[in-house]
C-alpha cells in the first residue's frame, strides 16, 4: 500500500512485539499529510501498539517507522518530539501542580542547556491553553479538576509541544459522552487549523464522523483504509468485528453510522 505523495509519518513493514508476543509481523501504514486519520479495530488488533511505534515508545523489531524520510529511531529524541506529539493513555500529574505549570512542561523538547525558557515558550503555553479552553484554569490545581477538564489540560500539554503531527491514544476513554464529543470537536478544530491528527478510537460512529482517513485493523494487519464513506460497510464490520449490523447515513453529518443488530439478528423476520 502506498501512502501517495504526502506522508511525513509512515510505518514500513514493521514487526511489533512485546516480550516475545508478536502483535504485528509485517505492518505498513502511511499517515496522509493534513489528514485526521482514525485507526479502529477490535481489542488486541494492534492499533495502540502501532501508535506506540509511531511515537517512539516501542521500537519495531524489523522494518522502520519513517518520519520525514528518515527512520524515527535515528532522530535525537527531542528533535523527534518537536515533530510528533502524543497524548498518552496514562499520564500522571505531579501532586500540587497548577494547570499552567503542567502545560509549560510540554515545552521540554524546545529547551536545552543553551536554549532556556523564553517568551516564545510563554506564548506557546498560553496558546495551547486558549486552544483547549483551559486558560481560565491556569492557576487551578490539576488535582481539583473534573475528568473532562483534566483531559483537556493533557491535550494542552501536547499542543504546547507545537508539533505538526499529533498522536492520540484512545483520548476519549473514561469520559462521558458530552465530554467525548467536546474533545473530538476540539481535535477536529486542530485538524482544520493544519495539524495532522492520528487517533486510536473505539467508537466506530465517532471514527466515521470525525475521520478524513479511516484505517481498519484486524490481527495486526490493515484490512482497509480510506474515506469513511468508502470504507465502512456492513460487510466490513461483520468481517472485522464479527458483528451483524446495518450501516445508515448519520442523520446529522451524513457519514456512515453503524447500528448493531444484536439479538434482533437472530429473530425470524
Amino acid at each position, binding site marked *: 500500500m502506498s501512502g501517495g505523495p504526502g506522508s511525513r509519518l509512515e510505518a514500513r513493514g514493521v514487526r511489533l512485539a512485546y516480550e516475545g508476543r508478536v502483535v504485528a509481523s509485517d505492518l505498513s501504514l502511511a499517515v496522509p499529510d493534513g489528514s485526521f486519520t482514525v485507526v479502529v479495530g477490535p481489542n488486541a488488533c494492534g492499533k495502540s501498539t502501532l501508535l506506540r511505534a509511531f511515537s517512539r*515508545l516501542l521500537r519495531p523489531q524489523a522494518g522502520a517507522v519513517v518520519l520525514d524520510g528518515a527512520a524515527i529511531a535515528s532522530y535525537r529524541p527531542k528533535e523527534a518530539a518537536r515533530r510528533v506529539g*502524543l497524548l*498518552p493513555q496514562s499520564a500522571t500529574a505531579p501532586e500540587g501542580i497548577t494547570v499552567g*505549570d503542567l502545560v509549560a*512542561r510540554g515545552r*521540554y523538547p524546545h529547551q536545552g542547556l543553551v536554549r532556556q*525558557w523564553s517568551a516564545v515558550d510563554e506564548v506557546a503555553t498560553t496558546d495551547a491553553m486558549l486552544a483547549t479552553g483551559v486558560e481560565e484554569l491556569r492557576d487551578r490545581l490539576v488535582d481539583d479538576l473534573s475528568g473532562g477538564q483534566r483531559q483537556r489540560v493533557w491535550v494542552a500539554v501536547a499542543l504546547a509541544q507545537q508539533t505538526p503531527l499529533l498522536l492520540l491514544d484512545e483520548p476519549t476513554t473514561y469520559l462521558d459522552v458530552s465530554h467525548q464529543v467536546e474533545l473530538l*470537536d476540539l481535535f477536529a478544530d486542530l485538524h482544520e487549523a493544519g495539524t495532522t491528527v492520528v487517533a486510536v478510537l473505539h467508537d466506530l460512529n465517532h471514527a466515521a464522523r470525525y475521520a478524513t482517513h479511516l484505517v481498519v485493523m484486524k490481527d495486526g494487519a490493515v484490512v482497509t483504509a480510506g474515506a469513511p464513506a468508502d470504507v465502512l460497510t456492513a460487510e466490513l464490520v461483520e468481517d472485522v468485528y464479527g458483528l451483524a449490523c446495518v450501516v445508515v447515513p448519520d442523520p446529522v453529518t451524513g457519514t456512515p453510522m453503524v447500528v448493531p443488530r444484536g439479538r434482533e439478528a437472530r429473530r425470524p423476520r
Partner: protein
Amino acid sequence: MSATTTSTRTTTAAVRRLPVLGLPLRRRPLLVGALLVAACLALAVVALGTGDYPLTPLQVVQAALDPSAGFARTVVLEWRLPRVLAALAFGAALGASGAVFQSLTRNPLGSPDVIGFSTGAYTGALLVLTVGGVSTAFASATGSATGATGGGAATTAGALAGGLLTALAVYALARVRGAVQSYRLVVVGIAATAVLHAANTYLLLRARTEVAMAGAVWGAGSLSTTGWGDLTWALGALVVLVPALVLLAPALRQLELGDDAASAHGVRVERARLALVVVGVALVSVVTASSGPIAFVALAAPQVARLLLRGPGLSLLGSALVGALLLVSADQVSQRLLQGVPVGVVTVVGGGAYLLVLLLVRARRTA
C-alpha cells in the same frame, strides 16, 4: 463546546519564570527558600559557638573572619566547622537523594534509607574495612581527629559499590514484565534492608573487637569523628555529583508525568532513570562512607519540603535545604541534649515519629 470562545475575558498575568529550567518564580517558594537558608546559617553559627568553649554568635563571626583571633579561631575553624559543614552538606545530599528516589518511585516511602540503598552502602564500606583490612579508615571512626584520607577513598568506593549493587538488585527484583512497580520496589527494598542488616551484624561479629566496636558506633550514623580529612574527600565527591544532578533535574521533572509522556517529550527514559539512580545512590554512599548510615533524613526532607513549598512534585533544592536543616538540628540535639548519642539515633527516633504522623494523616485522609 463554547469554551474556546472566551477570548474577551482578561487573561491572568502569566507567571514569571526563571530562564533556567523555566521554573516558575513564585513568592512562596522564594520566601520559604530564603527562610530555610537563613535558618541553616543561624543554626550553623549557634553550633559553631556551643560546646565546652562557648562563644557568642558575634564572637563566632569574628573568629571566622579575623586571622589573628587565636584560640577562638582554632576552635571554630578546626574543631567545630568540619562537623557543622558535614551536617549541612550531608543533610543536603540525603535530602536531594530522597527527592530523586521518591520522585522516581512515586512513593513517599521509596527513599534510599527505606529501600536498602544506604544499608547496602554501609555493607560495602564494612566489607572494605573488615575483609579488606583497611584499618586506617577506622582511625576516624575510633575518634582520632587526624582523619584518614587514604581510607576515605577505599571506603567511599566500597560504599558506592555496595549501594549500587543493592540498587541494581532491588530494581531487578521489582521489575515485572519490563516495568518497575513502585509498590513492589518498596516491599522488595524493605526485604533487602532486613537481609543487609543481618549481613552487617554478621560482619561486625566476625571482625576484631576494636574494629567491631568502632564499626558499631559508625553504623549508628555519627558526625562526631568528622575532621577536615574525610570532609574534603566527601565534599569533593559532592562537587561532582551536584552539577550532575542539576543537569538531570529537567528529565526528572518530565519523568514525573509518566514514562510515556516523558518519552513523547524527548526524554531518553531508561538512560535518564539509570543516571538518576547512579547519582542518587552516589549521594547516599558518600554520606554513608563518611558518617555511617544516617536514616530518615532522605525519607522526611522531601515531604517536609513539599508541605512548606506547596509546589508541584518534590523540589530537589527544597529537599536539600530541609535535609541540611534537619541534620544540623539533629546533630545539635545529639551533642547538646543527649550527651553525644550518635546523630543517626536521633534521626531514627525523630523519623519514627514522623512516619507515625505520615501514616496517621494518610489514614485520616483516606478514611
